[in-house]
């Protein structure tokens, strides 16, 4: 078994955490052999050349996201930090993840259906009513509504992490409008073109087919089984930080990229205003939140949505993906109940486990958490993207006090979790590998069938020691390879 070249020159710490590429004794894990072979062979000058080519391509193709900071006058347009050492997942490990994601998404979808219909899970006393109806993402408008194939969540992104033993855990479920598809597909293109030698020497599961499945899932939603549906991607506009992703998906799948003002409601239908006049829209893949969809139904000040959209939706003349109200299932407090959902709806034991979670609305949980705040991670249930988070072990005493006060004031709004030792993978810094914490966003696509994109998006906390992988907080990405065998 080979050992990393870097280990002879630099200290590489594979001891403190689970490392994806190296075992504790710095031997290379078998599924990383090819990667190690290539990177041991490349000279620093080669690495610099490839790094340069990579950055150039990302700039030229405009693979960027926009960062809004309060102290900045002009928003920053950044290319996402992309590390070119791929994350490799062995075949058998992926089989397990694939099964686990399917199981979880099925249960979450069944839960959403149940909540908007007979609410059996509440009647059975498994989830308290107030956690559901008091949830800010619960949409009473959706009650009793029929969704095609009962597929509420056309797209999901489930975030997975690994602990110090390499066991996988679900960190959170993103069921509203998960983003990251473009980095996943674009990252693969860049890697297969700039690291063609490595890519072609490994048998990597193809992901291109998944885009076709994505489009197929959207088409399947078309009301009345229309054969050639008009599908639009509804974006908040070019100022949105994920606008690159919206343009990418629209381009790759041949969708019309529209803003709210391009659509109009008439006679319980939604129309696209284009040069040929009004054309009826059948499916809306929306990348805006529920409350902005329709100013008549939700947020009256919203300029992003389409007045009347919910009427057309209720009349069954247009499909929306993901369906409004799926947020009820990805709330951080509901998260704690997902294992119970899996048992309740599917009668199975969860394949992927939750991170141990304390529900602060419960008194005993709250007392424990307040006493151990410096060991826990606290999250505000309704926020995402790494905002509103306290990481106990690294927080200052002032931050700890602030959160303790906030939890006492509004216990329902917070959960606490055991601090997980996120696994690490090497990134290239200059010409040496250095470990960084990572997670994995696994995407599923639901139409008539359920499909999990092989690999997903590996997110990297680019700052040394940091546990925050969100791109809005300086996180980067890696291409993720699932081996065929």
């Amino acid at each position, binding site marked *: 078994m080979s050992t990393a070249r870097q280990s002879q020159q630099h200290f590489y710490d594979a001891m403190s955490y689970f490392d994806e590429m190296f075992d504790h004794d710095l031997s290379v894990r078998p599924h990383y052999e090819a990667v190690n072979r290539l990177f041991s062979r490349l000279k620093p000058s080669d690495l610099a*050349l490839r790094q340069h*080519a990579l950055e150039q391509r990302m700039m030229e193709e405009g693979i960027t996201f926009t960062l809004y900071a309060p102290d900045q006058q002009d928003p920053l347009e950044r290319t996402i930090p992309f590390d070119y050492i791929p994350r490799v997942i062995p075949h058998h490990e992926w089989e397990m993840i694939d099964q686990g994601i399917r199981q979880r998404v099925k249960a979450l979808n069944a839960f959403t259906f149940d909540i908007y219909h007979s609410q059996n899970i509440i009647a059975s006393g498994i989830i308290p009513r107030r956690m559901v109806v008091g949830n800010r993402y619960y949409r009473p408008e959706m009650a009793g509504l029929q969704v095609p194939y009962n597929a509420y969540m056309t797209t999901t992104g489930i975030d997975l992490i690994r602990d110090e033993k390499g066991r996988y855990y679900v960190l959170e479920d993103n069921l509203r409008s998960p983003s990251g598809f473009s980095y996943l597909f674009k990252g693969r293109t860049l890697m*297969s*073109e*700039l690291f*063609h030698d490595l*890519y*072609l020497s490994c*048998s*990597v*599961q*193809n992901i*291109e*087919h998944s885009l*076709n*499945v994505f*489009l*197929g899932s959207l*088409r399947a939603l078309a009301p009345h089984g229309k054969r*050639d549906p008009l599908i639009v991607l509804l974006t908040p506009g070019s100022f949105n930080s994920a606008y690159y992703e919206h343009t990418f998906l629209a*381009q*790759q*799948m*041949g969708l019309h990229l529209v803003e709210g003002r391009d659509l109009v409601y008439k006679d319980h239908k939604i129309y696209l205003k284009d040069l040929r006049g009004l054309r009826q829209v059948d499916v809306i893949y929306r990348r805006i939140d529920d409350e902005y969809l329709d100013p008549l139904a939700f947020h009256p000040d919203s300029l992003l949505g389409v007045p009347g959209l919910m009427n057309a939706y209720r009349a069954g003349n247009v499909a929306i993906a993901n369906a409004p109200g799926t947020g009820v299932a990805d709330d951080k407090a509901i998260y704690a109940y997902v294992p119970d959902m899996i048992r309740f709806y599917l009668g199975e034991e969860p394949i992927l486990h939750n991170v141990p979670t304390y529900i602060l609305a419960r008194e005993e949980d709250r007392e424990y958490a307040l006493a151990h705040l410096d060991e826990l991670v606290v999250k505000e249930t309704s926020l995402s993207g790494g905002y509103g988070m306290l990481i106990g072990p690294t927080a200052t005493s002032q931050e700890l006090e602030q959160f303790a006060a906030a939890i006492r004031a509004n216990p329902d709004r917070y959960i606490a979790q055991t601090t997980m030792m996120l696994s690490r993978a090497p990134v290239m810094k200059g010409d040496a590998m250095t470990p960084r914490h990572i997670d994995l966003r696994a995407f599923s696509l639901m139409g008539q069938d359920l499909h999990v994109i092989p690999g997903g998006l590996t997110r990297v906390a680019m700052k040394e020691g940091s546990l925050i992988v969100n791109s809005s907080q300086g996180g980067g990405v890696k291409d993720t390879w699932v081996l*065929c*065998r």
Partner: protein
Amino acid sequence: MLNRNAEALFWVGRYMERAENHARLLDVHYHVQQEGLAEDAKEVQQGRKWARIVDALGSRQAYEQQYGASYTEADVLHYVTLDRDHPNSLVCCVNYARGNLRTLREKVPSEMWDVVNGFYLWLREQRQEELQHGSPHEFYQRIKEWAALFLGTSQSVMPRENEWHFIECGRYLERSENTLRILLSIRNACMDEALDTSSGGYAYLQAVLKSVSGYQAFRRYYADNIAIESINEFLVLHPAFPRSVYFAMHQMEDHLRGIGFQDAQLRAAHGKIIRQAGKTIAELSCLEREDLAGDPGGEIVAGLLHASQVLGEAFAKTFFRMGEASA
């Protein structure tokens, strides 16, 4: 204009188009790999892939004379790209185009010579090792950029006279032949690999679309229906897609009509070749999707390819009178 000038212009158009097509085909096929195959099966499949590229862009016989019977990535890339002994290689195409333009320098705007000369000088410096060691994608991207520079320059500076129409006739005739050759190679690939569209087959069909920059356009018309029948229909019959056979043939006919002659005898011959092009287009227009789908032997595509070749010969006979000197 002299006959030989006309012929040289016609071939400038053809060679530049051919160079671009080589680059597109190689770039995309280089990156296709079929997943889930065992190591040795993968090697066999790779060998077949490279052999098909030789089929599409050259001849197996000539290849095997020089490189032997094994079709490896390094050999085939060299044969098709930088081999100066292979008349159909990229470097030879550009060299011929440059040679032709050299004889036409007083007849075409000097910018066009500058571009082709620069292209050739750059290509001459390229080495096989660097091509493979660096990024083949970047390399072929550069080729496409040079070709686009030539196209853009001619578009913006050439007077729309006979010279222009000859170049464009060459370009579009070449384009329709290339698209048809790609279609034949799909058919062969399907026979070889018994492709199904679930995994490896899908990657291959998608690669075909990308090689003609047709992926995004195809999506707009056929959505998620990536299947051989739809791709056949799209690449043969689509009226708006600029690399379809239908589009290329129509463009060629337009430019053919644009050529003007004083001489009565030439005018008669000109009329004849226009009618011949019209006949091919009429046949094309009568094709239905079902005809193409029910063509597993590829007779229709082969027939169209033959018709294109006959048109090329007719060009030579009508305008150049000396047979195809530089096919």
